[in-house]
């Protein structure tokens, strides 16, 4: 031994041993002594195999020594045993020692690498955990690709998802999962390129299972680089989204149906506004009602539909505010079409929120109520027309009733009043004939006189009747009449009668002039005064003609101190040819008051008597009542 070498070995931190050719220890340096726990004395002549975990394993130790002899060096990692039985992980390097080409023994370097090994083992355990975890993930296919895209690992999720077992698929190119279309466009290659360039590639798309069926996949391809930044492969995570896609498809179809429905609605303008009030969608009804096409209007503020006064008062913004605060805003109001014309709209603005509760805008539903309004207006007009018509009919009916009454009256007149004198005349003529035949001439003159009287009465009746009916035909000629002139004319016409009855006729009038048909009003007052003169019980009739204006209403009265009218007869006095008294007591045909009534009717007034039998009668009449409010009778 060269002392220099000895010193080297003695001080080396690594355990050095020499063995004889049979594997017995010849020398051990201090590091070896420290590592193995044996003393130098114990180590020398100890078979090297005693440091192996199984110290009786001669075969393995012989084999390793053989290998060292054959190859010149043998390096192995493995467990070694200390004297106390504890083990350590070591790297053993055996080299043969030759002297004169003959094996003299072995040098042996023993390094305790337990610490490194523990680290390695921990790493491996951790890797193992991840591997197990990855392999156990069932819902994701997770597998590794080498840099060229060949599959290097396969987990249970991949098996479930794609249908391949690990042994079927490892080593295959990952393009087997792609559709023919994708293969034609070299999609797998591009995906890898993108992953390399950007670190990852992510997409959703159709992929093929082992059985050929398609599934909608979400894939994430990640490029893996080592510390030297060299590409070592890719990880690929694939998820089956078919179910989600089905749901989405259902949603999409539903949404499409809904959108088609909304878009095609003609009667409702339905559109969306963003949160600022800009139009973002537009349907057919909106086009029809507002006149804008979708291209023209989308992006515009919805205030475009409002009349100027609404814009000035800030109504559109207010409506959105209300819709946002209360969920919805509803009203009817005028809106503008594209051509500037107005329409009466029913409007509902509803605030729209996303699933997450964010306010994303408004929906606006507009209905054109103009047609309905127009219909309502037409209905109202029609109703008013019918009402007018009904009122006219009622009036016509009243007139017809009136005419009917007159006709009935006329029938009665012809069949009674006119027929009676004719019958009388005929009767006496027959009597005369009878008497003449008998040669009797005594009573002939009486009979002839009676006939003449009857004929006169008839003439008078016909005259009065014509006069009465004449009032129907001529229109009332309205003129201004001075009341004084009116009364004077009456007095003039009745001068003879007034003088004959020695009557006192007084006039009290505070009315200057009235409006009416002069001839008819004269006739009216004249008839009343004439009656006042006639129906008296003594020779001193007192007649007062009064004319006053009450609330703008002209009211005449003719009062007498005559025989009066029984209360039950008040209505009868105006009937044509009606006489309350016999001709012998008070002569007349019964036409005077009927004429008065008709004149007053034609002047749209009223006539009525007030009387106390035996004390006198006052006839009142008014004119043109429709021009003022009606007066009470008293």
């Amino acid at each position, binding site marked *: 031994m060269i002392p220099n070498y000895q010193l080297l070995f003695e001080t080396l931190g690594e355990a050095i041993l020499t063995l004889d050719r049979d594997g017995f220890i010849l020398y051990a340096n201090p590091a070896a002594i420290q590592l193995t726990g044996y003393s130098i004395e114990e180590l020398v002549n100890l078979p090297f195999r005693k440091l192996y975990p199984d110290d009786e394993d001669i075969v393995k130790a012989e084999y390793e020594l053989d290998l060292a002899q054959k190859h010149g060096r043998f390096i192995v990692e493995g467990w070694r045993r200390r004297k106390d039985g504890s083990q350590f992980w070591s790297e053993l390097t055996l080299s043969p020692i030759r002297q004169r080409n003959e094996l003299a023994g072995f040098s042996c370097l023993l390094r305790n690498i337990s610490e490194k090994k523990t680290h390695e083992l921990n790493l491996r355990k951790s890797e193992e955990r991840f591997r197990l975890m990855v392999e156990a993930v069932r819902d994701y296919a997770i597998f590794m690709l080498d840099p060229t895209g060949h599959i290097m690992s396969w987990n249970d999720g991949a098996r479930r998802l794609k249908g391949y077992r690990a042994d079927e698929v490892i080593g295959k190119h990952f393009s087997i999962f792609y559709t023919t279309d994708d293969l034609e466009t070299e999609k797998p290659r591009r995906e890898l390129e993108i992953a390399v360039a950007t670190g990852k590639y992510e997409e959703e798309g159709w992929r093929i299972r082992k059985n050929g069926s398609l599934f909608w996949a979400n894939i994430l391809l990640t490029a893996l680089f080592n510390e030297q930044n060299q590409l070592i492969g890719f990880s690929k995570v694939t998820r089956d989204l078919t179910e989600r896609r089905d749901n989405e498809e259902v949603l999409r179809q539903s949404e499409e149906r809904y959108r088609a429905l909304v878009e095609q609605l003609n009667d409702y303008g339905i559109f969306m506004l963003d949160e600022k009030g800009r139009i973002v969608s537009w349907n057919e009804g909106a086009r029809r009602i507002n006149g804008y096409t979708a291209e023209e209007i989308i992006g515009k503020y919805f205030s475009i539909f409002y009349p100027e006064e609404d814009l000035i008062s800030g109504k559109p913004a207010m409506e959105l505010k209300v819709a946002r605060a209360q969920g919805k805003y509803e009203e009817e109001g005028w809106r503008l079409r594209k051509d500037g014309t107005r329409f009466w709209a029913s409007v509902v603005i509803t605030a729209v929120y996303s699933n997450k509760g964010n306010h994303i805008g408004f929906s606006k539903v507009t209905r054109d109520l103009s047609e309905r309004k127009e219909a309502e207006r037409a209905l109202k007009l029609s109703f008013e027309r019918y009402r007018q018509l009904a009122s006219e009919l009622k009036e016509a009916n009243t007139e017809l009733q009136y005419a009917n009454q007159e006709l009935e009256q006329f*029938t009665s007149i012809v*069949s*009674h009043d006119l027929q009676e004198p004719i*019958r*009388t005349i005929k009767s*006496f003529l*027959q*009597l005369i004939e009878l008497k003449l035949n008998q040669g009797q001439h005594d009573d002939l003159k009486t009979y002839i006189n009676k006939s003449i009287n009857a004929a006169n009465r008839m003439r008078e009746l016909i005259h009065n009747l014509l006069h009465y009916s004449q009032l129907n035909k001529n229109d009332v000629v309205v003129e201004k009449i001075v009341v004084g002139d009116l009364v004077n004319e009456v007095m003039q016409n009745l001068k003879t009668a007034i003088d004959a009855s020695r009557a006192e006729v007084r006039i009290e009038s505070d009315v200057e002039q009235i409006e009416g048909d002069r001839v008819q009003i004269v006739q009216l007052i004249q008839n009343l005064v004439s009656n006042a003169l006639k129906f008296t019980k003594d020779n001193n009739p007192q007649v007062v003609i009064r004319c006053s204006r009450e609330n703008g209403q002209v009211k005449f009265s003719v009062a007498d101190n005559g025989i009066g009218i029984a209360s039950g007869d008040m209505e009868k006095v105006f009937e044509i040819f009606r006489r309350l008294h*016999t001709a012998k007591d008070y002569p007349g045909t019964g036409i005077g008051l009927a004429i008065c009534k008709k004149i007053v009717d034609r002047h749209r007034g009223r006539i009525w008597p007030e009387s106390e039998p035996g004390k006198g009668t006052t006839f009142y009449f008014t004119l043109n009542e429709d021009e003022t409010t009606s007066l009470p009778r008293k």
Partner: protein
Amino acid sequence: MKTYKIIVVENDEDEQFFMKEGFDSTGLFEIITMVKSGDELFEWLEANMDSQPDLILSDLNMPGKNGYDIIDEMKASPVYAAIPVVITSTSSTPTIIAKCLTRGAADYVVKPETFIEYVPYVQGLYQRITDKKLVK
């Protein structure tokens, strides 16, 4: 043969005269009284409560209370309501006849063409009263 006691209401004196002749010559009726109007009729009825007529024959068109008034007043009176009132008039107009019957006239008889034809008129009237059992 029963003789009906009758009151005749007729305003025309000449007609009254010829009617009386007609009634008297047939002997079918006993004229209790002849009056010129409804007013006179009711005055008479009031004054002669003991001798009520079987029947009243009244003209329609008269000054004062006319035929309609007589019907109304007779019908409204508890004392006279049972006495039938037959209206007689020159008119044969159906509406007028209907009006009388509606108001409560027992019958309506059109007057003869002339005063001198009252005999057949009275005979016809008697026949109608009997046939229709107007007098109880």
